[in-house]
């Protein structure tokens, strides 16, 4: 399959199972949304996909090739990008240098950079003195400079003003329409579901629900139940679609 596919994927942390037997497909051309309450294991899952921490079981395939044992650098060369939680800019580098780190050449850097006109005038500013929104744009531009085919995005909207989140969300839709596989991890659902194709809900390390994003967007009260209890209410029409 083109894109990312996990089967029976498990991750331990400090000896505890945090992600358990997750099956997940992130096809090219789609925005796959992953929701879940704080502590559900979303970040842990992404970190194991990109190789920051090892998986303890199952397989991860990128464009049909198994990547479980590949190094972080190798995974990135295979087309995987990971926008980490918490805006991991290189603070002592300038805005443009941050992008240069990831780009194959200057042209790729300029191109990714021009996605965000807001950043152009901050080009030579140290990344640590950018605002939160600018830093988020920077880490996105930096990931795009790699020209990835699959991208993992961890809680982009955390701590950002709603106006900025609304500015950034459509970017994922556009990139998916251009053929990228996007896995968008969010805690707050509405804006992500609005641009998403398929949605998963992770609860205590397990996929508690899988449904088309627009169906889930129409029934946010059911979503709340999954967050609170780890399962859908008995009378939910989404039950049939549940994983």
């Amino acid at each position, binding site marked *: 399959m083109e894109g990312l596919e996990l089967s029976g994927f498990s991750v331990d942390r400090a000896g505890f199972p945090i992600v358990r037997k997750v099956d997940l497909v992130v096809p090219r051309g789609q925005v796959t949304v992953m929701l879940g309450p704080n502590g559900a294991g979303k970040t842990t899952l992404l970190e194991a996909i*990109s190789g*920051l921490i090892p998986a303890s079981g199952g397989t991860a395939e990128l464009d049909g090739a198994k990547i479980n044992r590949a*190094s*972080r*650098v190798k995974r*990135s*060369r295979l087309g995987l*990008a*990971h926008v*980490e939680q918490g805006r*991991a800019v*290189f*603070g*002592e*580098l300038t805005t443009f*240098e*941050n992008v*240069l*780190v*990831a780009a194959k050449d200057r042209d790729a850097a300029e191109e990714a950079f021009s996605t965000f006109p807001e950043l152009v005038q901050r080009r030579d500013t140290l990344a640590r003195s950018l605002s939160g929104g600018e830093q988020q744009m920077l880490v996105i531009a*930096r*990931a795009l400079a*790699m020209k990835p085919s699959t991208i993992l995005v961890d809680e982009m909207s955390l701590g950002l003003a709603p106006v900025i989140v609304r500015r950034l969300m459509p970017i994922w839709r556009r990139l998916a329409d251009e053929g990228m596989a996007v896995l968008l991890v969010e805690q707050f659902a509405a804006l992500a579901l609005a641009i998403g194709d398929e949605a998963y809900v992770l609860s205590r390390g397990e996929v508690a629900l899988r449904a088309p994003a627009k169906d889930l967007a129409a029934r946010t009260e059911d979503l709340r139940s999954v967050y609170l209890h780890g399962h859908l209410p008995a009378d939910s029409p989404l039950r049939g679609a549940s994983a």
Partner: protein
Amino acid sequence: MFNYAVSGLIYGGAYALVAVCLVVMFRMVRVLNFAQTAIGAIGAYVAIILSEHGWAYLPAALVGAAAGAGVAVICGSLMSAWFADAPTERRSTVAIAIFITLLTLGFRIAGSTPRVAPELFGGSTFRIFGVNVTWAGLAVVLAAIVLAFLVDVFLRGTRLGIRLRAQSERPQTAELLGVPSRWLAVGVWGVTGAITAVGLLVVTPSRGADFLSIGLLILPALAAASLGLFRSTWLAVVGGVGIGIITGMTEYWPEVKQYQDIIPLAVIVIVLMWTQRKEVWDAAR
């Protein structure tokens, strides 16, 4: 006395070279590398033995530099394999262990008898303003200045340099972006290992050519690098040359000379007190 001060240039240049290496290691590889001169001493020693076997200076020095690089790469690979994600404190502690191991091993193998070390440019000198300057002293000070300059240009102006700075700040994030952080770090170990070997080789004829005393030159180098708190290559050069000149001057007074080795420690303490003073002031604001 001026003559003595100038005679210290050769120490100063060598300390400065090693100190710049320490700064680069600290900034780019996140380790306070106590083992720097123990590694370099192996390279310098290889060069000394080759020259005892009749090798000319340049080829002996090149092979010595390669040996220094080789030992450094081995140490760097071990660090990358086992302590890649560890904080600087832990990695520096490992460096102390490497320092002691190499020094002990080297001492066992090389023994304590001083070797006859070759002199760069045959120890030839020139006179300027009535002072004798060794060509070697001048060359090594210039080399240290050029190195500090190149390090700055490289880190600011090249893509590889930018990637090095990125991985020094967030090695894992850099890896996610395709930067081979571990290989870059091992490369920095290798290059600084080679430069340190050469720096130590140049200074050995004047400072005693047994393995232990070469390895212990970590003390003045640490003191020199501490002048810029292991951040500034330029202050490391100033520190190195300064300590060298003061060391040279102590030769003038025999009664002071016996305390020569305390100078680096005094410099460290003064620098720490000075910077702490500033911090207290900052906190009080």
